[in-house]
Every structure is written in structure tokens, then in C-alpha cells.
């Protein structure tokens, strides 16, 4: 290792050729992976003639926001709002209920390993098998096409993930702080909210991000349980596939609205998120 004041840029080190080769390979792979996204997103800015040109046009002649205005005018953007409400509210409820339950599982071994395994196995059941009976139930109690129906289902579906992840994070926190907080006279709820929650805040953050994304991107539940009032954005996207014609520009614009906010959040916070993706298999 050369001392920092003699540090050379990487392209002048020994073995720079290999680094160049890796860089080139990484660039090619990344461009290949991003090209479809570019293509769909670019469609949103094309004029109708460009969208339906054959052979296709590779880039819009002008950045054209017409399609977005059409979505606003027709009220199709309401779907983004509906997604925000259902995903947001269900995430908050699932995070709270899940974290306190995870605390009980982690600290008191409530239910032992069998309860923990039962909980996470609920997450693995195919949504189609769950949504069918739930639809019949919701039809009876009038919860189809309502916020509360979708929020209840998303909360239930995401709870196993929250409990599973938060249990892992809480187990990593040393006990001493909670014990001294209790000795100092804090109530159990105060200990939980003021001592435990702050200690696992990165875990809370990462789990919240994933829980939100699962609900935000979810399709089958929303397809079955919404009609007109609470359509979420993935369902709205499928409505642009018409019998006669597919509205590619609208699909592109809607996809931009539904994807970019989530992507930027994740890209900013990526180093906290690997554990969440691997369901705790890798601790970070």
C-alpha cells in the first residue's frame, strides 16, 4: 500500500487493464438492464405519432408532458393517491403491531419457534388462495372497493414480514438498557417506545421501506378487491390495455409516477436494505 500522499488514480495502478475490462462489462450489463426501463419511460414523453411509429422511434423528439396532463385531466392519477393511502396506512399499522409482537417473540420467546415459523409461513401462501375467500367475506360485509378492505388485507399480509424482520433486529440489541430503564421506573410501554424503538431505528426504517414497497407494487389483491373507488396504480396500468388499442404513452407515464419515488428512496438507502431483501439471512 502506498501512503495516501503518493496515491495514484486507479487507472495508473498496476492491473488497470483488468479494472477497465470490469468497468466496461459492468457498463454494458447495467445499460442492458436499464434499457427496457428507458424505453417504457421514454414512451411517456413521445407524441402519439412517435408512440405508434413503426419501426419504433428510439427517443422522443421533444420532452412532451401532454400525457401526464391527460392523466390528471381524466382523474387517472387518483390511482397514485389510492396507492399512497392504502400502502401508507397499512404500512404504519403493520409496523406498529408487528414490532410490538416481534418484541414479545424476541424477548419473552412467546410461542417458541413454532409460532415464529407459523407466522412467516403465512407470508408464503399464494395471494390468489387467500384473496378468493377474503373476497367472498368482504362482499358480505361491504368491504369490496373500500380503503378499509384493502388496508386490512395489506396489513395482514405484511405483518409476517414485519414480525420476522423486527424480531431479528431486536434480538441484536443488548438487554441491559431495557433492564435499567425498567429499574429506573419507566413503564413497559415507555421502555418499548423510548428505549427499544430508537435502538432499532435502522431496522425500523429498512422494514418500513420494504413493507411499503410490497403494498405499493401489489397487484392480485387490488385487482380483485377494487372496482372504481380505490383503484391502485398497478391496476390502473392494466386498464390501459384496451381491446382495440393499448395506450402505451399512458402506461409509460403511470409507470413513471409509480416507480421513480420508490426507486429514489431505495437507491438513497441501499446500504441499509440488503438484510431486508434477504429476509434476515445476511445481517448488516
Amino acid at each position, binding site marked *: 500500500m502506498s501512503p495516501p500522499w503518493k496515491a495514484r488514480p486507479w487507472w495508473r495502478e498496476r492491473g488497470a487493464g483488468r479494472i477497465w475490462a470490469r468497468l466496461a462489462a459492468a457498463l454494458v450489463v447495467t445499460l442492458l438492464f436499464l434499457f427496457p426501463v428507458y424505453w417504457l419511460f421514454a414512451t411517456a414523453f413521445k407524441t402519439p405519432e412517435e408512440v405508434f411509429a413503426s419501426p419504433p422511434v428510439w427517443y422522443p423528439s421533444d420532452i412532451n408532458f401532454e400525457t401526464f396532463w391527460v392523466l390528471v385531466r381524466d382523474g387517472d392519477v387518483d390511482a397514485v393517491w389510492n396507492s399512497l393511502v392504502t400502502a401508507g396506512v397499512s404500512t404504519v399499522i403493520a409496523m406498529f403491531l408487528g414490532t410490538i409482537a416481534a418484541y414479545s417473540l424476541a424477548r419473552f420467546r412467546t410461542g417458541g419457534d413454532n409460532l415464529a415459523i407459523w407466522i412467516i409461513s403465512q407470508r408464503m401462501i399464494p395471494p390468489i388462495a387467500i384473496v378468493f375467500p377474503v373476497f367472498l367475506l368482504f362482499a358480505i360485509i361491504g368491504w369490496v372497493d373500500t380503503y378499509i378492505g384493502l388496508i386490512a388485507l395489506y396489513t395482514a399480509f405484511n405483518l409476517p414480514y414485519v414480525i420476522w424482520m423486527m424480531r431479528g433486529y431486536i434480538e441484536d440489541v443488548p438487554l441491559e438498557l431495557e433492564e435499567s430503564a425498567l429499574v429506573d421506573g419507566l413503564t413497559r410501554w415507555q421502555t418499548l417506545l423510548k428505549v427499544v424503538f430508537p435502538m432499532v431505528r435502522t431496522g425500523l426504517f429498512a422494514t418500513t421501506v420494504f413493507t411499503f414497497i410490497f403494498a405499493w407494487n401489489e397487484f392480485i389483491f387490488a385487482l380483485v378487491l377494487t372496482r372504481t373507488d380505490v383503484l391502485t396504480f398497478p391496476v390502473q396500468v392494466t386498464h390501459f390495455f384496451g381491446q382495440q388499442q393499448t395506450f402505451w404513452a399512458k402506461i409509460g407515464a403511470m409507470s413513471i409516477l409509480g*416507480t421513480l419515488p420508490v426507486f429514489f428512496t431505495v437507491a438513497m438507502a441501499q446500504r441499509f436494505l440488503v438484510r431486508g*431483501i434477504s429476509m434476515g439471512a445476511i445481517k448488516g
Partner: protein
Amino acid sequence: MSRISAHTGAAARLAEPSPVGVLADRYFRYLIVWPAILVLLLIGLFPLVYSAIVSFQKINRRVEDTSFHGLLNYGRLVGDDRFWESLLHTGIFTAIALPLELVLGFLLAKLMLDRLPGRQVFIALLLLPAVISPIVAGAMWRLMFDNIFGPINQVLGWIAGGPVNILWTINDNPVVVYSAILVCEIWQWTPFMFLILLAALANVDRSQLEAAELDGASYWQTLSKVILPAIKPVVIVALTIRGLDLVRLFDIVWALTRGGPGTMTETVSVYAYIRGFERFDVSFTAALAFVVIVLLSLIVMAMLKRLEIAR
């Protein structure tokens, strides 16, 4: 900083004394766990019980007969070719996509593991497919594969030196249609494998790698004797998560082909949706849902116990 916990034995965990002393409180520990359990019963117990009940009745678009019909619907399910075919299609998708995602993700992780300028930017950009809604991913590839407006046929035309007109998503050649769906699936989830494997590879003990190098181990020996055993627990967890996702494959098939042309790409989930919500075969679909819930619950619980990722 990081460690792999996937193989910490459940038995070892149980042997630990539960934290007693000031923390122990019989009332509080149940108070905070019950709300979650009650909500979970909505998806855990209710669908199972309700599906079981309805599956013994005879409810469809024309009849609503709630008397006991025994195993009528289960018999129909066993004798239903379309159900078995949908199982086969699901199996084909899983068997092809899972190994390809693993290998591509591994190669990508190897590429980004060593010195690479701007690595964080590459990783952030490669996250994009994994956070896109599967429905959007399906729509995206439907446009890419569109026989008139899509760039894929255009590029193939440049290579072939003449116009190419492949009807990717409505072709009656299964190889073509399956390729289109698999490209979408692999495009979306290879980055997931990549990210997990990158973290696992970064956690491999450096001293072991150096020892192998000192002993004059070849590249393949190091890979098979040091690296692969070290990342195995993580690989198994990743394969389990992705495998269970693939078994319930619905969204991208729905966006790309809706199970078509005909029933060529129907997965179990797509078939269940069509029977339940387009044809209103309530009791039949309930039987299907019941079988799927019971089978998958048993498989998942057995797997989790064996993997001991339950900790």
C-alpha cells in the same frame, strides 16, 4: 460487522435461558402479541376454514347449493387436465428461471466484488428492476416484445438483415412465448440474487481465501472448496424465497399474456383467478385454494424447520 445467521440452530436458541428478572411479565408479553395474531388469523385461518367449507358445497354461476357434496370438487380437481397443465407450466417457469437467476446473479456479484470504480452507482441502478411493480415490468416487456412498436424485433431485423416479425406474446409456439415471459422474470429478479450474493461474497472470510492462495489452490478449487460452502446458507435462503415467489407466479404472466395464447402459459395462480373470478366456479376454486394453502403451508414449514432460518 456482518455475520451470517442462517444456520444458527434452533436447538441452540431454545437452550438459551429466556430473559427472566425485571423483564419477565406474563401479562405484557401476551398483550403485545395478540393484536398481530388476531389480524394474522384473517389471512391465516379464515381463508383455510372458509375454503374448506365452501369446497364441500356446490356453488357456481348457476347453482347455489350449500348442502354437503363430499369430495365432488376435489374429484373434479384431480380429473381436471387444465389444472395439471397449469402445475406443469408453473414448474417449467420455476425450473428454468431459478437456476438462471442464481447463475447470472452470481456472475454479476463476482464482477462487482473486486475493485470497480463507481460501484455504488452500478449497484443503485441495478436495484431498479427489483423495486418496479411486476405489473409495470410485464407491461414494459410487452412493449419491448411488441411485434410492431417494440425495439426487439427491430434489433433482430438489423441482425438478420431484413424485417423480422415475431409475435412474441401471442405466438402459438410455446418456446417463443415462454422465452418472452422468462426474459421478463429473469430481468426483474436477477438483481435480487445479485444483491444477496454480493453481500454474502463480501462476508467470506478473507483469511481463508488467502490461505487457499498460499496453498496454491486453483481458481476452481478456491471456488468449490472455500467460496461456495461459505455462501451456501445464504444461497439456500435466496433460492427458497425466489422459489416460493415463482410457485405463485401471476403478475407478469397476467400483464404479458393473460395465460394465453389459449391456456399455454397459464400458471396455477392464473388458472385459479380465471376459475374463481371470470367463471365464478366458487366451490371448485375453493377446493383449489384449499389444496394450495395446505400443501404450501406444509412445504414451507418443513423447509423452514430444516433450514433452521427460524433461529
